[in-house]
């Protein structure tokens, strides 16, 4: 056996080609159809096709394509491509396709959280006293914000000031099946602080609602009263909606407050850097939760339904 024969045999090239590259031993000349390409090549092709196209069109071509597109490796590779994971990722992921989509969509769903665009994107539900105002950090008798990227805040007055945003999940890219089958964790955060020289009360309410605005889950802690001359450090409130019922299509976020001493001007609580971020972690139980009782409130009302585990430090 010549040296070359030995070399080719060692690499298994004599008739099989690169290990793993060939499922069949057809010489290339007779191959004409895309479905005759080895699976690893088809997978390689699919990694170059945008995710939406794969799910919307390619998956419907034939069962061979559907099975390949559903293969875990493809979505793991795409996640790697986008930088959602690193090569040494070792956290368990149940469904890589869903992980990929949830990570692609992940961002703060609240607009203008830090008052950079004045009051834009916020609906004003209550504007009493001298009404809502925007000021720059740290503000009079205030403290700087822990994150230097946040430069401004909203401040309330001596009458009730409340503002809100209603998020339309479908419009934000969270389609119905995704929300209902996987019910990814919804993480809500807000930051608030009093002025040192005046007492005030801070209010927060977050509700998950159906397409018809029926409340499916709610987080409405009791209002926080801060005395005059209390600590002005910015406080963070955080809450995660987990294992909520299927059917969530809207999220209502509302906050605000007023001062307790009826002073003209803006001495009520200050708020900024609010966020609603849908995590890439789906619900632990795939089965839908039990249906709600018949007297469940419509959104906007005070009654709250189930309120799963509270993560707040403050309340």
């Amino acid at each position, binding site marked *: 056996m*010549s*040296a*070359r*024969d*030995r*070399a*080719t045999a*060692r*690499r298994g*090239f*004599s*008739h099989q*080609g*690169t290990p793993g*590259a*060939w499922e069949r031993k057809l*010489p*290339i*000349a007779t*191959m*004409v*159809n*895309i*479905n005759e*390409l*080895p699976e*690893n*090549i088809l997978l*390689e*092709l*699919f*990694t*170059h*096709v*945008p*995710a*939406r*196209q794969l*799910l*919307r*069109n*390619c*998956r*419907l*071509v*034939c*069962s*061979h*394509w*559907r099975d390949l597109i559903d293969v875990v490796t493809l979505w793991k590779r795409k996640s*790697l*491509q*986008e*930088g959602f994971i*690193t*090569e040494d990722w070792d956290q368990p992921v149940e469904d890589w396709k869903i992980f990929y*989509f949830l990570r692609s969509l992940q961002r703060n769903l609240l607009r203008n959280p830090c008052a950079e665009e004045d009051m834009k994107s916020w609906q004003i539900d209550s504007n009493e006293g001298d009404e809502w105002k925007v000021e720059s950090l740290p503000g009079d008798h205030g403290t700087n914000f822990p994150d230097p990227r946040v430069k401004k805040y909203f401040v309330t007055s001596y009458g009730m000031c409340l503002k809100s945003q209603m998020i339309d999940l479908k419009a934000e890219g969270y*389609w*119905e*099946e995704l929300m209902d089958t996987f019910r990814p964790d919804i993480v809500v955060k807000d930051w608030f602080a009093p002025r040192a020289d005046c007492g005030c009360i801070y209010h927060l309410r977050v509700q998950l609602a159906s397409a018809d605005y029926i409340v499916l889950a709610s987080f409405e802690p009791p209002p926080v009263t801060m005395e005059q001359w209390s600590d002005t450090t910015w406080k963070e409130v955080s809450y995660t909606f987990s294992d909520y019922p299927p059917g969530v299509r809207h999220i209502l976020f509302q906050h605000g407050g007023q001062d307790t001493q009826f002073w003209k001007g803006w001495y009520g609580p200050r708020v900024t850097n609010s966020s609603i971020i849908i995590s890439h972690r789906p619900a632990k139980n795939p089965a839908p939760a039990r249906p709600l009782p018949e007297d469940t409130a419509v959104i906007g009302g005070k009654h709250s339904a189930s309120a799963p585990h509270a993560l707040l430090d403050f309340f």
Partner: protein
Amino acid sequence: MPSIRLQGSDGEIFEVDVELAKQSVTIKAMLEDLVMDDEGDDDPIPLTNVNVAILKKVTQWCTHHKDDPPPPEDDENKEKQTDDITVWDQEFLKVGQRTLFELILAANYLDIEGLLNVTCKTVASMIKEKTEEIHKTFTVESDFTEEEEAQMRKEKLV
């Protein structure tokens, strides 16, 4: 300019510059094995899975790309968009579907990353169409029943 001889699946011999041939990780490895064996015989390297016509096209691509920088290590490098195919490559790949697939298979077998990349991106851009067009372009038939297909369309995954 030292050259080596490659033998295609059709038996034909094809001579190519060694440095160009080494763009193929497969051939490079084989050459290293041969140097270690130190027998110095002149038999051509058999490439039983590639015919000479395709070998010639591959050589053409390698010649044009011989001064390309080596591809960066994976981790930091994000995949570029399909629009990143150079004009030269686009022209080079204006071939029939069969030749395109043959080039993909050759690039895979010979382990030439740049060529595999650019040929896959080219085919991928043909896949970025509606389902019916994919059926036509690639002569693939659906094996779903009407109910299955209706169900899948209803799923509305995106």
